[in-house]
């Protein structure tokens, strides 16, 4: 674990009560390696190390801690602060329906998360959701959402006969207005942030539907690329929150810090399994200790 590595590296600091710049250089090297191995983006690591150095230099070694443990505490606290607070609620207005857009790269877990989130909204924010798939590309994508809706008892808009995302959105919105659904959950097709036509499609859907939340669904095992995709989705479409999926795996999850750092939006939920109740609120302290390893 990082604290053991630091203990070794700083062992000759025994009896000293303050962290010196020399010792910090040694410690920062170990921390940099730990964060890179946890998949935090190397630019984010650079900035993080600078911030920690500033806070740690000259800091007292607290009673009962060895210098290595003191450094870990400063790193951990800084990581928790950067990851943001727990804000596991979605924002809504009094307009009916409100729309929630679910976006992200291929295979990240959007369709599954759409099911989980709508179940969560029904049970925790008293919403009446209608599910809509505008994934007109992936084989059986709309069938997949239909099966999920049936499994969780939440209606799915039947868009058969329509093959254009905007038309599907308008029809589903009308359906909400007529039948009283207050939340339209829009599951979009996976896409690359460098695919101009598809990023354009997202902008058009957003302009038409004016969603109160646009959630970026990201895979917890994502490596250095997390910064690129998150930045592009945020700059081109505008993200209001993040769902980090597959956290029931053993990925350290450094992508969480990278994404939060570059787009500044809260990580709202964490996917922890394939079943539709496997959605947890985001707790920064848990993710921080997981990233540090």
């Amino acid at each position, binding site marked *: 674990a990082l604290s053991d590595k630091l203990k070794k590296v700083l062992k000759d600091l025994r009896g000293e009560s303050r962290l010196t710049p020399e010792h910090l250089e040694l410690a920062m090297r170990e921390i940099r390696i730990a964060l890179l191995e946890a998949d935090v983006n190397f630019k984010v690591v650079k900035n993080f190390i600078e911030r920690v150095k500033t806070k740690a230099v000259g800091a007292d070694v607290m009673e009962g801690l060895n210098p290595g443990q003191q450094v870990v505490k400063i790193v951990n606290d800084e990581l928790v602060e950067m990851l943001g607070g727990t804000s596991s609620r979605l924002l809504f207005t009094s307009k009916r329906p409100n729309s929630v857009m679910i976006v992200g790269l291929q*295979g990240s877990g959007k369709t599954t998360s759409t099911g989980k989130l709508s179940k969560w909204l029904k049970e925790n924010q008293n919403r009446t959701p209608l599910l809509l798939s505008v994934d007109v590309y*992936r084989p059986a994508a709309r069938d997949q959402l239909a099966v999920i809706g049936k*499994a969780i008892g939440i209606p799915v808009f039947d868009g058969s006969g329509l093959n254009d995302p905007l038309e599907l959105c308008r029809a589903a919105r009308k359906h909400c207005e007529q039948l009283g659904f207050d939340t339209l959950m829009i599951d979009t097709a996976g896409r690359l942030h*460098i695919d101009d036509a598809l990023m354009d499609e997202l902008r058009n859907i957003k302009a038409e539907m004016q969603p109160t939340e646009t959630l970026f669904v990201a*895979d917890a095992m994502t490596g250095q*690329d997390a910064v690129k995709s998150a930045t592009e989705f945020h700059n081109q479409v505008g993200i209001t929150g993040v769902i980090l999926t597959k956290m029931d*795996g053993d990925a350290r999850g*450094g992508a969480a810090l990278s994404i939060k750092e570059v787009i500044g939006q809260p990580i709202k939920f964490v996917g922890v399994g394939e079943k539709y109740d496997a959605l947890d609120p985001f707790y920064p302290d848990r993710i921080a200790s997981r990233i540090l390893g």
Partner: protein
Amino acid sequence: FKGKKQIDADTLDQLEEILIGADIGVQTTMTIIEDVRKQVDRQTLKEVDELKHVIKQHLIDILEKATRSRGIASETAIPDDVQPYVMMVVGVNGVGKTTTIGKLAQRIKAEGNSVVICAADTFRAAAADQLAIWAERADVPLIQQKQGTDPAAVLFDSLKAAKSRNADVLIVDTAGRLHNKQNLMAELEKMKRVAQKEVPQAPHEVLLVVDAVTGQNGLSQAREFMKAAPVTGLVLTKLDGTAKGGIAVAIAKELNLPIRYCGVGEKAEDLIVFDPQAYVDGLFE
């Protein structure tokens, strides 16, 4: 270091960032950079272009060593007495297994083989429907059962069907599974045993599909999947994105697993045979 000719203090740092940024990983990157630094200090390397070439060659050596160590399992070199040649496609959730099978079926059929696909993902919503569309596109038969059936049972049926139809190749789609889930890895092991019992030496090829955006967790994925099934090679998907898939280099180095194919898009033709030179050139683009 675009346009820079001579190596200076920044050059090695920039190269280190390219390798780390490509998900090659800290350990492999440090080994390569240290090796190169020695040559720079000894003045046996003076120019940036030479340096890039040396690093690229270092990476190609890692990738080619993995290929040689395992001998290519290849559907283009199936011995005549193997029937059917059984290929299992495995990996964690959402990496592109089902789509890759759609592409492989089309490719293998075009090479003159009769292909059958087994829909052994009986868990995920609409998994069989998704695969059915791909099977239809490749015009190959699909063996499937309803959601919830034991995947080993579907595999068993598919092996019987492939044998009775004298199919050349059986491609098995499996459910996405996280490698730290013991029960799911045990299920994979059971499927391997079922295949072994029905066809000697089966599964002849086990492809582990890895998403190009995967970070260091890709190494744990490879390690754990190799314990549950005789993985023979990797398919690196979504290389049409901005991620470089460098974790495949770490996997090649540590586990000697070769990259067999790369997924470069979502259409049936978007599968290419892995080319180490092209791949390594792409890392530096």
